[in-house]
């Protein structure tokens, strides 16, 4: 069966699982870690509906046989330039993964500010796992003290990633980087040879820049105005009850189960590790704490439209999982 993102997201977990678990190796020191996304999804993800308002499902059809194909009967194919199709199975792809897919081998450290903006792709937090507290804190402290980032490659979910690991305020985070051959240079794009501008022109630009000079970036400047407008419209319509339908139970987007309150999960993962000081006597994984869980279900009980609040996604996911288990 073909794997894709929706398979991964359909795990019926009431709490956010680590996106990946593995071990950072730093010389002969091993630091088991869990990896969680540090980016939240866009605020608005619209569903596609039928004219009657039923959420649509994506199905695959064989155009020759004019019939639907079950997921188990789907394989991957690579189309060659001559039009031939080469079938590649999951087993064949798995065999290509390095045996040490659970390893992030830090063999190179670079000045933390040495990586260009264009390389950065997605962000993740790394939290200590399996009682790696001490080694984790040691690595974070040293990287922060020396202003270094660690560089490594590793394979996660059938893709190889180049990552930079940074330490910030005692917390390790990983940024996936683009590979050099995925970036186009100014020459690739065909930009003209740099011309030396006249000093007067540069001075004029500096004046224009200085007029707009600020010390910091205000997060408010990054607001998604389209999402603001859309959510305002949704709230108005939800209040009037116009054009609203009930979500059929089976149509609830499985992808949403990934959007639990990330903050709560991260705090718990970092805190869970804090309770253990002896790195060897630690349990395999900190269990979900009951208190935190209870809180989110009570939130789910209070009905309110998915307002602009980010935290509300937590309510929706735990409600969904409650419904599934009941």
């Amino acid at each position: 069966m073909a794997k894709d993102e929706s398979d991964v997201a359909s795990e019926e977990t009431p709490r956010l699982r680590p996106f990946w678990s593995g071990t950072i190796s730093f010389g002969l020191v091993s630091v088991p870690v869990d990896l969680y996304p540090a980016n939240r999804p866009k605020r608005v993800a619209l569903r596609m509906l039928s004219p009657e308002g039923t959420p649509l499902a994506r199905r695959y059809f064989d155009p020759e046989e004019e019939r639907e194909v079950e997921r188990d009967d789907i394989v991957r194919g690579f189309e060659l330039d001559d039009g031939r199709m080469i079938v590649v199975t999951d087993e064949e792809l798995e065999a290509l993964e390095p045996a040490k897919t659970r390893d992030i081998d830090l063999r190179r450290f670079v000045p933390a500010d040495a990586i260009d903006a264009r390389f950065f792709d997605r962000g993740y937090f790394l939290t200590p796992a399996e009682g790696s507290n001490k080694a984790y804190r040691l690595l974070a402290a040293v990287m922060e003290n020396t202003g270094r980032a660690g560089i490594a490659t590793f394979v996660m979910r059938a893709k190889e990633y180049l990552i930079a690991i940074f330490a910030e305020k005692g917390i390790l985070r990983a940024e996936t980087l683009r590979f050099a051959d995925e970036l186009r240079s100014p020459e690739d794009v065909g930009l003209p040879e740099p011309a030396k501008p006249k000093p007067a022109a540069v001075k004029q630009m500096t004046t224009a820049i200085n007029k707009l000079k600020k010390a910091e970036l205000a997060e408010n400047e990054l607001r998604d105005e389209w999402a603001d407008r859309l959510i305002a419209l949704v709230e108005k319509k939800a209040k009037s009850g116009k054009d609203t339908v009930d979500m059929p139970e089976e149509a609830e987007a499985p992808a949403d189960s990934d959007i639990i309150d990330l903050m709560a999960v991260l705090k718990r993962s970092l805190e869970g590790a804090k309770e253990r000081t002896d790195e060897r006597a630690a349990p395999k994984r900190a269990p979900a704490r009951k208190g935190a869980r209870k809180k989110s279900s009570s939130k789910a009980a209070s009905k309110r439209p998915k307002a602009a609040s980010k935290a509300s996604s937590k309510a929706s996911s735990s409600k969904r999982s409650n419904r599934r288990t009941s």
Partner: protein
Amino acid sequence: MAARAMWKGVLQLGTTEVPVKLYSAVEPRKVSFRLLHEGDEEPLRQRMVDPETDEEVEYDATRRGYPTDDGRIVILDADELDALEPEPSREIALTRFVPVSAIDARWYDRPYWLGPDDDEEAYFALAAALAENERAGVARWVMRKKEYVGALRVEDGYLMLVTLRHAGEVVSADALEAPGGRALDERELKMAEQLVAALTGEFEPEQYKDEYRERVMELIEAKAKGKTLPKKRARRKTAAGESLADALEKSLRAARQAA
């Protein structure tokens, strides 16, 4: 071979204008597979189906819905969505210039090269001024019916516009508490520092290859020729069952020998 510009706009710094062309700086190299029907190996077609009737719904007949937290869907019609769309514009408005380091890398999304559009003088003057002042601009613009926020930077003497994630889309470490515990051992800290120093070098991005992708392509080529690939797996390093201090000491010795 020069790439085609994907969009043209005008950088607007107050009353100063710099016309630019925009090019993608990224060329993804993911191996893309098609989904096939096992057996007849026919490429599959995706359809959006009403699960209640099992009938396909043509794209033009589809509507959009926003799922609310209380289990409802608010239906949004095409004309309502159209009304929310931003006005098309060529303007790339610079709202402020901040020190380059003030924009955390985690906000970066996709990079685009900017090229001069008929006014090279203004273009390279702005690039030089940004480099001299070590500033990055914060820009807002509308491209293909979507609103973007971006950082205007200088890379290799050229202007680059990197789209930024929207507010709320980056989880800040400020709100998190680092794992705590007993004070770290001074000797271990020192050894770890030496180990990091021994492994420190330049960032050499060309050194890293997507080897998994290369192996997938090798497999495909081998299969195209009717061959199978010999099973090859990366070596497994033996796990260290020793104490942190011992592991650090051994690693340091190894790193020094390698240097």
